[in-house]
């Protein structure tokens, strides 16, 4: 059984700020990490392999330094890694990214594909389901537990807005996972040593037979028009008057800041 995990190397967004005057990102010394949700995806794949057997292959689409993220995944125990890197992939939105990743998955061949729920830089949570559509396979999003894997189907718990559904799916299937699913393991020394030595396959757009109109900026239906700082904290204000007036004023302020509805 091939279990393919899609990961992304992201800046640690807790540290990323924007300069409100120039509208530029301040990224001084912000480290690159594996998207935290993807750690849960890797752990889920490893647990399936440990229980039911199989091979865990980690893939990512990114610039050359994304290789470090793949090595971190290998040090947790993944068996193989592929880096999709090509100048032609630059500028991809979720559509083009999903297309590219799905071409790679097609080439590798997968029974189960696992993605983290969302990436903490883009925050869209779209790539997983879009990939499933490109691969013409079913998907289950927001999986918080893998209950059982049988020969012809698996059963998972899918988190909903207030509770969860128990869902069964045929293979192949794509799952996106939430943090509640597991506690990702730390790397092992043997894993780190193997990861250091590992030869990571690098695939370009021609290696995966990608249609050049569907990748990179060209293949992206959406574009970023501009970025700007979120509404800055307003100056301090004391709200005076009767309790009624104070509460009314507070509500108005919060609503004007779009914080309350």
């Amino acid at each position, binding site marked *: 059984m091939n279990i393919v995990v899609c990961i992304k190397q992201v800046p640690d967004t807790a540290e990323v*700020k924007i300069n409100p005057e120039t509208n530029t990102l301040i990224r001084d010394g912000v480290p690159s990490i594996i998207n935290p949700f993807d750690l849960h995806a890797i752990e889920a794949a490893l647990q399936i392999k440990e229980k039911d057997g199989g091979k865990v292959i980690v893939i990512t689409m990114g610039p050359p330094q994304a290789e470090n993220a793949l090595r971190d995944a290998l040090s947790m125990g993944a068996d193989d890694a592929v880096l999709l890197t090509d100048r032609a992939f630059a500028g991809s939105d979720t559509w083009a990214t999903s297309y590219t990743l799905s071409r790679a998955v097609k080439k590798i061949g997968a029974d189960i594909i696992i993605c983290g729920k969302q990436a903490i830089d883009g925050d869209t949570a779209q790539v997983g389901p879009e990939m499933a559509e490109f691969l013409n396979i079913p998907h289950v999003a927001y999986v918080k537990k893998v209950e059982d894997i049988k020969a012809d189907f698996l059963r998972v718990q899918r988190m909903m807005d207030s509770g969860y559904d128990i869902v*069964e799916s045929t293979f192949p299937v794509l799952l996106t996972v939430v943090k509640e699913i597991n506690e990702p393991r730390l790397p092992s020394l043997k894993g780190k040593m193997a990861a250091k030595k590992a030869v990571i396959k690098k695939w370009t757009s021609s290696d995966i037979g990608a249609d050049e109109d569907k990748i990179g900026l060209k293949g992206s239906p959406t574009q970023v028009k*501009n970025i700007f700082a979120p509404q800055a904290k307003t100056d301090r204000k004391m709200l005076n008057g009767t309790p009624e007036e104070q509460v009314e004023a507070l509500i108005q302020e919060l609503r004007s800041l779009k914080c309350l509805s």
Partner: protein
Amino acid sequence: MSVIINRDQCTGCEECLTSCPFDAIEIREGKAFINENCQICMACLSACPEDAIIETEKEETAEIDAQEYKGVWVFAEQREGNIASVAFELLGVGRKLAHDLNTELSAVLFGAPESGAQELIRWGADKVYLSNNPIFETFNDEPYSELLSSLIKEYHPEIVLAGATAIGRSFIPRVAAKLVTGLTADCTSLEIDKETRNLFQIRPAFGGNIMATILCPNNRPQMATVRPRVMKRGQYNEGRTGEIVHISGEVLSSRTRVMETVKEISDITVNLQEAEFIISGGRGLGDPKGFKLLKELAGLLGGALGASRAAVDEGWISYSHQVGQTGKTVCPKIYIACGISGAVQHLVGMQSSDIIVAINKNPDAPIFNVATYGIVGDLYEIIPLLIKKIKEMRETGKTVNR
């Protein structure tokens, strides 16, 4: 298209280096150079004081035939036959967009009875595409996305909106992938650009540290999801009429099956460190009952309960809620401190919250030095009023406008 440095204008000042989230800018021979890590996010353009960073020409892309795509659609989700509130909120913003585009507003409803469609009309839809095929009774991604995609293909709306809920976020991306079009998630603002008739989709990124305006200029429909409670409901009109188009949805199938639905009553166990709202209580509560009151407010706002060390030491609430130097450090959007004096050990744990609201009887309490909004008053008067007013505000959203 790409982003390059005009080496003649570049002075090697290195201002741009730290603006790049992907480490794609380096100095070569004294001038800036953009390497292969560049993701064309264009964050660097405005960082250069010499305007030496430029985007090269965009390639000509086919103009869309604007005539072909008309109409604003809202996907109205339902659970167990009840339409989710977000659908009515989307009709609110949808109405504005339809008005600006001088076009029709329609809703798409799967798995609910005709009365649901009527309700959508009263909330602003001109037309409702309704299918109550039994396959929609439980939520499976494939039938939902198949039918919505084929409806879109048949009727060509220019804009499709959906709720960024567990259901919406799961299947709407499949639709966008299938239709080869753009989807923008979690929009906080949607506007029409009068010149181009394009939809400006504004959303947070990088964990909310920046805002981005997204466009989908060359593909249709332009799709966007919006979180519940971000948009306001529109006007409710009891007597409003509209058209209901019945869709059978016969040939749909699903490779997934919902075996069981388990409901969980969510306690206010929202993770303190991930909550957007935190309502926090301190010694000023005087009594553990105070937390019951704060819990009610937290429930209304979908937030978490916090506490100062004093309240925890009194045994009024468990240590897991403690915020401060020897408790948790939090950074929510809104932190409401009730009866908390603002000792530095507490401030250390919450002062980077976006907005701090402080309610305290003592006008000299140090918490007012860091509060965005300060209310000198009795929390036992203010909080109940706040709860009452929020409830009223939400009810008015529902009531009929005459």
